[in-house]
């Protein structure tokens, strides 16, 4: 087990008004993301609990790209990771942001 906590400043506040959402499952090669709108407008926090140790650098890269692409200002993400591949993490984070936007 390894815990990581990544802070970012997003370019813009996240869209939508949903307070909270959950996506994914905790399983081998998968992950669960809990997202909450609890931070100030541009702040973004990603807390990760992962089964796979030693991948801090990849997490940093995945999260930095995510913040740049989706601008999730004001959102706190709690990730429970079962050793998912980076592409799966990216997809789940994108899905989490979409859920916070609500119906389009």
């Amino acid at each position, binding site marked *: 087990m390894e815990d990581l906590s990544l802070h970012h400043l997003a370019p813009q506040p996240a869209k939508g008004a949903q307070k909270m959402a959950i996506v994914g499952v905790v399983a081998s090669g998968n992950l669960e993301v809990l997202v909450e709108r609890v931070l100030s407008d541009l702040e973004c926090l990603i807390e990760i609990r992962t089964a796979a140790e030693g991948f801090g650098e990849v997490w940093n*890269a995945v999260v930095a790209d995510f913040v740049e692409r989706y601008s999730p200002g004001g959102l706190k993400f709690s990730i429970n990771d079962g050793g998912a*591949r*980076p*592409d799966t993490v990216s*997809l789940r984070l994108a*899905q989490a942001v979409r859920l916070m936007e609500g119906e*389009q």
Partner: protein
Amino acid sequence: MATWQLKREGRDTLIQAGSAVAKGKIVEARDAPRLLEAILRPGDRVCLEGDNQKQADLLSAALLAVDPAKVNNLHMVQSGVVLPEHLDVFERGIAKKLDYAYSGPQSARIAMMLFGGKIELGAVHTYLELFARYFIDLTPNVALIAAVSADRDGNLYTGPNTEDTPTVVEATAFKDGIVVAQVNQIVDKVPRVDIPADRVHFIVEAEKPFFVEPLFTRDPAAITEGQILTAMLAIKGIYAAYGVQRLNHGIGFSTAAIELLLPTYGERLGLKGKVASRFALNPHPALIPAIESGWVTQIHSFGSEVGMEDYIRARSDIYFTGADGALRSNRAFSQTAGLYACDMFIGSTLQIDLQGNSSTVTTSRIAGFGGAPNMGADARGRRHPSEPWLKAGQEADPDGQPLLRRGRKLVVQIGETFGEKNVPLFVEKLDAVELADKLKLDLAPVMIYGDDVTHIVTEEGIANLLLCRTSDEREQAIRGVAGYTDVGRGRDKRQVQNLRERGVIRRPEDLGIDPLDADRSMLAARSIKDLVRWSGGLYTPPSKFRNW
């Protein structure tokens, strides 16, 4: 006096010798090794029919049972090296040299034997290329083939898995060679004549049906959300963008995902009737929902697929069928169709390098090529226009004179950035190059050359290589969809951003793809059982795919 019929006379003498163990053309299974000893001479070129699917397994065992003092140093010229016996004959010294196309299940052992010097390698071919050489410089002296049934004259019925048989027989029988067929049964009248009797010299009745491998069945239950996202990118960013009607799908989960998204996601995009209606394709079970939903007009097949026989028979509007109602496949014709009459090939691979060269060879496995290089190559002899072909040609050369500009076939490589066991799809240097160095080959076994590849699709996006103008741009376009692999992380971010602004790279958000749609509920069938249901019970999957 000069004589010009030495080969025919030689063949007739050998047939006479073989007839000593036959009754008419019929040879008992236990006498098959003696037959082969009578008709084979050391150094002969032999096609031991190993196709992609159908295997002449009885004749393989018979060849392995001959006396190596009598029959040795054979030159095997066969498309598939699939059964262990295909390599055992080299261990025993019965065979010496090999020219082939595909070696899926034997890929590890064939690599080991090549390294150990047990096999003298001619070349690894594409199917069409090997078939072509059957008529020029690799004509078999003896062909050992497989069919479903024969009548007493030797007319053969190959059933749905006709595959390579007509090509092999054509080259052998019409150039003074001998054709031996193993059949599942001898009957009074065959359901249809796939091979006429005068091309067949001996028939052996096997105790059990020839072996066929279900190579094209992908269980929808194993399709991931990443593959679904990648498939949506392909459908919206390529199928729709170019209006691709005529195409070939490789095997693999990414293309199975596309097949299962056509009736759902494709329908929602209003693409029915506009894309994916005519295929050169094996009877993929995953295409059943699209067929049932009215997407598909016509399919020509290289071979058949285990369990699809009744479905095909009941859907003769879609498939090519014979007078008996069953599928008629033909690998040589279908490969030609894929090469000349399809506007797109889309398939997966194991490794892609920085210039887009791809290979399924790793340092310990030589899987061969099969048909992908024919499907995945621009046909330089093509002359008929079509919308996707012209558009691709225009993208590659926007300043060329339209009336003199070649079109381009769309050659799409699709896959997740990390494959099975988290092995990266993208590499700085192909294992194939290392292998060629080690084996001192003149050519590295490249599946599809980078200059033929037009698009690479991963879950991160689509790289359109037609729009790249320099090799540096090409490299950055590839890095730009290589995700978090080392190759992907080695990208020049500014250059990749610039390529994205030019539309060379397109991300899911650039195409308006909602990540929430990347969900298994989007698949038209989520299990093999769903496919059976879609087929109205006509599809009968082999037991290894049944879990109910």
